[in-house]
């Protein structure tokens, strides 16, 4: 009898707790560990809603899931190149600027590098650049150049990203070309550059280079500034260089899927994320640059003076966004397969 009553009580409790939360829910699909949890709690409080988080670890995984019919997300954070793909395929909806007054703070210097400078269907969230992480004591004469990848004495202790656009892009920049070129002659030159680099590298590595450079297994790694910042926070001996020839810059953008249910709430969330105080608190947590001119002024001095996170205007202008190349992707894929299978 007693256990029967207990069971009933338990079922009742579960039912109650389900029924009680009538607040609207905003379903956010984001990279993991990429937002300050405090600001999420604050958003829930200010707007009497719930934020339900789901994470992905690659643009392709996210795209495949949405393409396969996953619905119910109200806000997604793809990288710019994936934003254009999703836009071309009608997977996301236009942004209503009237609902996002804070959009005025978005850094115009950054916006004009992007593929959606009018913020028609996407609003930048965080910006990252690709450069070189290096071991300060073992490479005392480091220079900010991709040519460091040719150093004989570092052979076997270098990694390149396992990413076709990043590696070919770095080689194109070394030769002074655009990293979105589709000119075959330029690409052939870039492949020659990579062939030289490949003689010195330990491997193509996209996931474990952080661990490798922290443990001194690798001394020089092509990597993303945000990733490297995480190691630098714990290890003074690691530095980050933005090559003077230029590099790739990219942003993860906020987009609203075409089938979103809480469209208004999603707009409110974008507006909230770019409220200067919130954006600053978020930057202090994730160590990435959010292109919000007002928020940057509110960030603590220590972070603001960090050149790895906050690029100078000149640095930023030397960078280029990796664009989706449509049909020419095949050309890159062919070259990349050739480089990797040699």
């Amino acid at each position, binding site marked *: 009898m007693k256990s029967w009553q207990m069971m009933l009580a338990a079922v009742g409790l579960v039912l109650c707790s389900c029924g009680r939360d009538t607040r609207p829910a905003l379903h956010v699909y984001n990279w993991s560990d990429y937002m300050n949890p405090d600001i999420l709690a604050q958003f829930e409080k200010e707007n009497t809603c719930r934020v339900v988080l789901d994470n992905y670890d690659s643009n*392709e995984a996210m795209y495949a899931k949405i393409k396969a019919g996953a619905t119910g997300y109200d806000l997604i954070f793809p990288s710019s190149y994936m934003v254009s793909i999703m836009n071309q*395929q009608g997977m996301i909806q236009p942004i209503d600027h009237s609902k996002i007054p804070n959009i005025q703070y978005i850094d115009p210097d950054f916006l004009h590098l992007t593929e959606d400078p009018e913020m028609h269907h996407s609003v930048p969230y965080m910006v990252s650049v690709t450069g070189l992480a290096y071991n300060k004591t073992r490479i005392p004469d480091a220079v900010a150049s991709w040519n460091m990848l040719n150093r004989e004495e570092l052979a076997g202790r270098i990694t390149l990203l396992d990413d076709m656009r990043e590696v070919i892009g770095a080689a194109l920049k070394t030769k002074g070309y655009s990293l979105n070129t589709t000119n075959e002659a330029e690409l052939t030159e870039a492949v020659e550059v990579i062939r030289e680099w490949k003689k010195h590298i330990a491997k193509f590595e996209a996931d474990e280079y952080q661990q490798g450079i922290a443990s001194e*297994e690798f001394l020089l790694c092509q990597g993303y500034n945000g990733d490297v910042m995480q190691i630098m926070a714990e290890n003074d001996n690691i530095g980050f260089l933005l090559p003077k020839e230029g590099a790739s810059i990219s942003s993860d953008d906020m987009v609203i899927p075409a089938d979103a249910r809480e469209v208004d709430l999603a707009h409110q969330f974008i507006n909230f994320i770019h409220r200067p105080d919130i954006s600053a608190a978020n930057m202090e947590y994730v160590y990435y640059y959010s292109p919000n001119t007002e928020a940057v002024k509110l960030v603590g001095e220590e972070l603001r003076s960090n050149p790895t996170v906050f690029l100078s205007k000149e640095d930023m202008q030397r960078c280029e966004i990796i664009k989706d190349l*449509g049909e020419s992707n095949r050309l890159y*894929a062919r070259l990349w*397969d050739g480089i990797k*299978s040699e």
Partner: protein
Amino acid sequence: MMSRNPRRMLARIGELQVLLVPPALWLLLFFLIPVAVILAFSFTKTNGQGGILLDFTMEHFKRALDPLYLKLLGRSAMYAGLSTLISAAMALPAACFIAFSPPKRQKLLLFLVFLPLWTNLLVRLFSFVVILSDGGLLNQALQTFSLTTEPLHLLNTPFAVILGFIYWNLPYMIPPIFVSLDRMNVSLIEASMDLGAGRMTTFRKIILPQAAPGIAAGLVLCFIPALGCFIIPDILGGPDTMMIGNLITSQFGQGRNWPFGSALSSLLMLLVMLAITLYLRFFNPATQSANGKR
């Protein structure tokens, strides 16, 4: 009690076929249908952005036959073949030792063979990184005993990949050989020795034919997974050790070309099926030894 009426017995066997339904359903749902989907995908066009267009094309198979990719296939077969053969050479003496041990020790040894499988392969591969890296345990030991002055570059090389495969293969190679030797009548060895055959002759003429079916099973069990493997070259390999499995994986991710990845998978499956069929037809030691006795 079974009825002696043959007709009723047949009916009983018919009823028993119901037992085949769950595994058949399972295979249909999780093996045949996915394979059919992959096969179908490999004839579709890609929209260049990771999507699939339902148009028939053979372009992916044509592309797969490019020398570039055939070279990858050749390298994969070489790594998988070499590591499988070395594993077999290592597993045969071990299996003999286990088979001829007293039952108690036999149990313990078999337990030790299976022990590595209790840990996830990924974790075990990262321990190889710790051992093989330039500043790793092996190099530290070599330098401590002054056997080398400069660290040996072992990690991120074909050597590390093949080593990884051998390590991965052994728990799948020893048991089948053990099983075929375990059934063997030990007095055959005594008889052979008594009749004047040396150790080598006894091994060649008595033990090896007995072990042959086990070796054959082990070769197949190890070679096929190694051929399509991508984790081991990914973690232990370097810039020059890409295998066909890595290429396929990348088509489903960054390459954003599912049809090409599917075509490569289909081609790999076809090759494996062809090889196994030929192998069973012409070169199966199991049937050979059975026939040889007659």
